[in-house]
């Protein structure tokens, strides 16, 4: 463990000291990446899903792999029903790795392949992963995907692969990185231009494509950022909040003018 941030994260995790790895953590340059998902704006259009496929070299989920329950989608749109015809409703919930501050996946990895970095990212180090899948079992969001097979990219399909993102081998876990390669690229560009990162400089692929801007990404430590302001919305809640995993993704409640009473989890 040569990385001091990993050491700090590990120590904090072992000591149960959420403050060190949570929202108040400073980190090397003070970023704390987070996302807000406005469920009132998500139309279920799937642009985020395929944008993520293309950016992150996500393997093709063939039909038999989907029927076998092994589909791979770092971000997916879950659909929940309410009511019955003719008053039935369909609700869309985009689900991705929640980059939890108190992540169930991080504490169980025997080889520190997954850890919390100093900017709040739940990081997966592919070449450390030995494929125990403990982390996937520890994730209540089912946001971690095991590679049962090597990805196949019959030539020239491999021409499309993003050179900034490694193609993962079989036997390891992979998941949403908040497009860490885009964070690094934006930092490099800001450094080159001798300026600070500005709000909006970093946009994960899903956020960039979203036609309704239902997804907002940014630095929670920047009080002026769009995400930091949205996270304090009265509609804010977190998925499966009772799990206590302290996700970095905040959801904004769906608005339904006919909702007789708010379906809030904590009344």
């Amino acid at each position, binding site marked *: 463990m040569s990385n001091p941030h990993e050491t700090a994260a590990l120590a904090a995790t072992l000591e149960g000291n959420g403050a060190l790895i949570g929202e108040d953590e400073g980190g090397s340059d003070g970023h704390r990446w987070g996302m807000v998902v406005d469920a009132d704006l998500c139309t279920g259009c*799937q642009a985020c899903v395929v944008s993520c496929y293309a950016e992150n070299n996500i393997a093709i989920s063939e039909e038999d792999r989907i029927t076998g329950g092994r589909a791979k989608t770092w971000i997916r749109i879950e*659909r929940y*029903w309410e009511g019955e015809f003719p008053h039935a*409703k369909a609700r869309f919930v985009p689900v991705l790795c929640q980059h939890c501050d108190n992540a169930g996946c991080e504490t169980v990895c025997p080889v520190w392949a997954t850890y919390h970095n100093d900017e709040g990212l739940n990081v997966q180090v592919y070449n450390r992963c030995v494929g125990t899948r403990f982390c996937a079992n520890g994730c209540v969001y089912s946001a971690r995907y095991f590679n049962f097979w090597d990805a196949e990219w019959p030539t*020239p399909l*491999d021409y499309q692969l993003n050179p900034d993102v490694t193609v993962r081998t079989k036997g390891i876990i992979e998941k949403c990185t908040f497009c860490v390669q885009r964070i690094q690229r934006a930092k490099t560009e800001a450094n080159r231009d001798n300026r600070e990162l500005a709000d909006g400089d970093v946009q994960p692929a899903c956020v960039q494509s979203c036609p309704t801007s239902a997804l907002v990404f940014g630095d929670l430590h920047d009080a002026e950022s769009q995400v930091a302001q949205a996270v304090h919305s009265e509609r804010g809640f977190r998925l499966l909040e009772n799990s206590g995993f302290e996700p970095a993704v905040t959801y904004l409640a*769906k608005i339904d003018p006919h909702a007789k009473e708010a*379906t809030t989890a904590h009344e």
Partner: protein
Amino acid sequence: MHLGRRKFLAGVAGTAGGVVIVGCAAPERESRVQSFVLAPEHSLPGDSVWFATADAHSNVGNSVVVRTVDGRAKKVEGNPAFPINQGKTDVRAQAAVQSLYHPDRIKTPMIPAGKRGDGRYEEIIWERALDMLGAAIGPAGSFHLVTSRLTGTEARVAGAFADLVGGDHLVYEPIENGTFQAAVKKILGVDNTPHFDIANAGTVLSFGADFVGTWGSSVMYSQAYSRMRGGNRGRLTQLETRMSMTGASADNWIYVKPGQEGALALSIAQVIVAEALVHFDVWRDVVEAIGGVDVLNQYAPDVVAERTGVTVTTVQEIAREFVDRQPGVAFAGGPALAQTNGLDNGAAVLFLNLVVGNLDKAGGVLANPMAPAHIPAPLPETPFAGWRSYTDDLAAGTVPDVLFVYDADPAYGIPGNPGFADAIAEVPFVVGMSSFMNETVGLADLILPATHPFEAWGDFTADPGPGTQVVGFQQPVTTPWNDARSFGDVLLTLAPEIKGEGALPWASMHEAVRAGAEKLFGMEETGAAFDASWVELLRRGGAWEQAADVSEFAALPDWDATALAGPEFAGDAGSFNFHLIPFATIAIGAGNESESPWLQSVGDPLTTVTWTSWAELNPETAAELGVGTGDVVAIDARHGTIEVPVFVSPVTPPDVVAVPIGRGRNFGGRWRRDRGENIFSVLDPMTDTGTGSLAWASTRARVRSVDRKIAMPTLERVEEPRNDVEEPVLEVEGE
């Protein structure tokens, strides 16, 4: 990595301008080995170069920027400067790189190795293919060109070529737009698509138009929807026969019996008039123009409630909210227009905008300028009735000497007998040009590989525009990895060989597109003086600042409401007790993009089903049939039977069976072939009486279990996941 508008413009101006000019940084041929001492200018190994170009599949006019590295396209983003999609894309644009580098693209010209259509082909070189084409078309007595709804310069070149050789140009599209456009003409009096200003609307009444999914300019309208939900949060009421994606996002989702959308719209209008919700000065003349108050009164809610399936109270609430929350806008699409009374349904719905007087108002209906004549909007399709009679004529032996089909697949999508595939058996020479094999190209005597839009020049006028003229340009972002050529370039190569030098005024599509841009700015034949502007246009992806007069809406509608008839259905209600409602899905649309495995594996938003066809059934209906999700049922219609697995859906009406369009193909690569069923194969060739468009939602069917079950390729692993009110996954709040 964020591509803000300012940054994008600054970026291309500062770093990549030269590359944008030349259109491509890749070596001329993939196979050429070249030292990087001679590297293409502005290209560094591993560095990204961004090109603005047209959205690969969109026929409404989106512009994208494509990230290329070492000459290969890697990622598509929306063009942040472009007024239509404003930096955003839909799901299909994101998969464009996959169709570009698809291993099963047609790689080289081919001829049948055996009998035509038996699936064995022999590769030939382009020179021989062009010789064959020239020899066939030159002396041909009759030449028929069949294309998809081409747009811009490509459409103009196709038309000019057809004229040059004395041929006919037919336009084929499986899901037609003609009924909508005809309704617009009747009610608004214009020949182009208006802009529905959803962003500023207080209420949106959408009759079957899946405007955040598969209808119209969905990326533009999705952003407008997002803005509508901000601020005072406008209301969306979706009235339709099967819940669409847009219906799932609506505040009010109302089931309307198939084909009764027009009656419901007039019922809403009747309430507005009868309750004097709007001052009579606003509606008096327009109501008089369609037949008067007496005609409207025939649609009073209590009179038509049984027909429409919508209660009196609900109609009154819709009407009152529509007026209370003005400005508002109403429009129709999808299955509402795919009926035998489709045109009148569309007209009745658009008429609602006149009743509340919201034309040319923010939040209402805005007029668009006509597209410049030399960069036309997508060509109107030949109505289905024309295709049906054309097919019958072919089958009867009235055949052209040469039939050239480009980017269209009538053999897949034309219902009725005889099928198009059988009908062209007697055509002496069939040419098929496409990026992928399809049902029609597979029957050709000469098969030509077409470029992907990322490899070719083109242009378009956004249709609909946002109330202003928006022109976009398409430039190659990479060189073809195979032996593909652009359709326009093939025609422009053939023209002088058949009719001599100067037969058409351009030598290449690049030249033709640039000439169109010059004309747009009144700089024809200024040569080098236009160079800087041309570069700038390509950097930005288009031009949208030029003033252009918008079409003028007619003062009064040219529509007689007494013409609104009830729908007719194929199959009697006794034997065929279900309405068969086909629908396009967000990922593969009408099937044109189904070659992409990413798009095949994207879950349908409402069902999460991937890769195959399915039949949506109401839970009670499914229980009566003794089937559940994954059980295979036979859907019998007058014209045939298909077998598909059931998806039990609580939003599906009890008398509806809904089946997606686009699958069930025999050609098109390993990820498209042999997946699901082709719903067109069982549809009745019914048409809208007003326009002749295919009434694809007017077929009745019966459903029966075949006692077989499959593992359903759904992304969700739980049957009927519910958002429990007591312990919800997703929190829901009132307004």
